[in-house]
């Protein structure tokens, strides 16, 4: 194959995240495995325990925002496994999110099957779909932006398919029926119940756990080696395809979980909400703002970006004196959101967590 065909690959690969090199550089020498104390796990437990107290201090409307943070977090963590650690830029993570949401809703609404089963089914289907698409893409040497466009088109095809498919309720989508009593098995509680949050938090913890285990595992380290230099990795006898597909499968399954949480909490899903391009953007924004290719980045990104649009809106609802002329004009809050987004990305191109960690470890 000639150079021209490979040009895009070179681009993405070399541009993929210098930050990770600090976390898990080529070879396995300085990875977290070297640490005797598994700080990542301890920190995770601490965050979850701390996070679990939120319903006791926060108001109901804060909890509504917190739910969005959890959904963002799971999507960002999922995206990061494949695109951050795996180096395959996904521009269509809505596909996996949507598969999770639709599997859950379809099984629940049509067959009265527990959302938990629906979630597992969704994770399995998402993993298979991701592997299928990526197998084809890698087999046909789709790399970099071309791979990104393939994932984008895949999500769009799913959206348009759901849109015209009778058993999937076409444009109407699915509404989760309101039950009379609360039920863990059917994943439904009364409105504003903290259980939604706690279950979501457990899902985030599970996603984080998967992420940490993946990075610490041999598979994870080989995946990053393949990302950093697939020629060298191949020379060492690593099966690049296998590691890449594993990363995709794990990533897709984690993201599908977010779909289940979304549909059970908001109780409604339709083709654009599930597979629309803005869903994919949310996953990317979360991970990139936090720090691509870092373990904690997506979580930080979700905590920052999840409430941001609400904060800008609330800020402009009662603005300080000097901004008063802007109050009452629709759209100013979104402009402010956009400015913050651009500023964060320019000032911290490695993400919030990525940049801070880069500074700290250099010292």
């Amino acid at each position: 194959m000639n150079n021209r065909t490979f040009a895009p690959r070179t681009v993405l690969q070399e541009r993929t995240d210098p930050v990770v090199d600090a976390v898990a550089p080529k070879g396995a020498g300085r990875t977290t495995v070297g640490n005797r104390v598994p700080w990542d796990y301890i920190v995770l437990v601490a965050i979850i325990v701390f996070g679990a107290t939120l319903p006791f201090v926060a108001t109901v409307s804060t909890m509504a925002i917190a739910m969005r943070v959890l959904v963002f977090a799971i999507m960002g963590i999922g995206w990061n496994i494949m695109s951050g650690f795996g180096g395959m830029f996904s521009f269509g993570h809505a596909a996996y999110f949507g598969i999770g949401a639709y599997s859950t809703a379809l099984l629940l609404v049509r067959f009265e099957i527990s959302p938990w089963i629906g979630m597992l089914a969704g994770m399995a289907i998402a993993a298979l779909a991701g592997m299928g698409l990526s197998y084809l893409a890698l087999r046909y040497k789709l790399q970099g932006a071309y791979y990104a466009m393939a994932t984008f088109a895949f999500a769009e095809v799913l959206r348009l398919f759901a849109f015209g498919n009778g058993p999937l309720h076409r444009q109407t989508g699915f509404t989760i029926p309101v039950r009379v009593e609360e039920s863990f098995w059917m994943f439904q509680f009364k409105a504003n119940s903290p259980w939604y949050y706690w279950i979501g938090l457990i899902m985030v913890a599970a996603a984080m756990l998967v992420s940490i285990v993946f990075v610490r595992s041999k598979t994870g380290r080989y995946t990053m080696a393949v990302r950093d230099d697939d020629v060298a990795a191949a020379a060492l006898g690593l099966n690049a395809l296998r590691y890449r597909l594993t990363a995709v499968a794990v990533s897709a399954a984690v993201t599908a979980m977010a779909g289940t949480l979304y549909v059970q909490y908001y109780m409604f899903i339709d083709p654009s909400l599930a597979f629309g391009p803005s869903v994919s953007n949310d996953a990317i924004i979360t991970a990139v703002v936090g720090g691509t290719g870092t373990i904690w980045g997506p979580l930080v990104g979700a905590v920052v970006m999840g409430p941001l649009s609400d904060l800008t809106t609330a800020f402009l609802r009662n603005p300080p004196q000097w901004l008063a002329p802007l109050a009452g004009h629709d759209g100013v809050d979104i402009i402010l959101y956009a400015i913050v987004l651009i500023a964060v990305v320019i000032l911290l191109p490695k993400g919030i967590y990525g940049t801070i960690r880069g500074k700290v470890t250099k010292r």
Partner: protein
Amino acid sequence: MTTTKPAPPSAPPSAVVHRATRSFSALAPQRTRHTLLTTAAVLAAAIIWAGVSAGSGTVLIQALVTGILTGGIYSLIAMGLTLIYGVLHIINFANGAMVGLAMYLTLTFVDGTGGMHPYIALIVVVPAMLALGAVLQAILLNPVMRAPLQVQLLITIGIALAVENILLLVYGPNPRSVALPGNRAVKIFGAAVELSRIYALVGAMILVAVLWLVLQKTRTGTAVRAVSANPEGARLVGINIKRIYVLTFAIGTAAAGAAGVLIAPFSTIEPTAGSIFNLTAFVVVVLGGMGNVPGALVGGFVVGLTEQLGALIMPGQSSLLAVFIVFLVVLFARPTGVFGRAS
């Protein structure tokens, strides 16, 4: 590392120039003949199938003519996108918002000059967009050119959000329109066509020609191509890469501006009027080969025809479904686009 752009590390300057002259040339005859034959065969089959489904010759001809014309619009909008991707490797999510901005500038120009011909707005809008593009690249994007793909993507998403909502703030939410003096319908082989859409197609072709000439025949164009083909090499031969980035983004934004002016007369002008083309424009860019300017024209025709014929063949489905299926098939069959990548 001080490299601004990753590149094969050891290309000597002479190779840079050599490769640069090859880039942006649309057709590599050897590889393309096979593709062209296949494309022609598929197209012929689709036309026959669509004709049978439609059951009317006029409808079929109308679909083909409309396909070409909307294809022209799509490629017009995709032109800036593909140029920017080809040189800067930025997936420019703000392209549609820029087209929308240009529509409003056209509107302001026509209203402000007491009803001058909207195409005259090109004289004002294109330089304005050129300047805007230069400023955006210099201030917002140049600082992060070494960061991964998704960082620039996020910045362009932010720009798109900001531009659309500023338009909402300034012009309000009500839809507007610009009239084209002398616009009327003409018949082509029985198909009815509005003149304004034919002008847009002609405009797309002129834009391709202009961009092609600028890239092929000017010193600056050669520098742009050199940076696109091999940034490291270009830097070694003394090209100021950051300046070329600014210039390219400016030209790409100006192209979006020209597109906005040309489609304004038959568009409903709203803050989101440009971004509705975002999806289609991405498809056009990849089909034509990312960074391949003439390829975008062909990609536009492919998408326009697929949409029209697909709607006749599969009446119950969204016409976009056919587009994305064709897109995936082409992507896997020819990963670098129908006509190959530019560099």
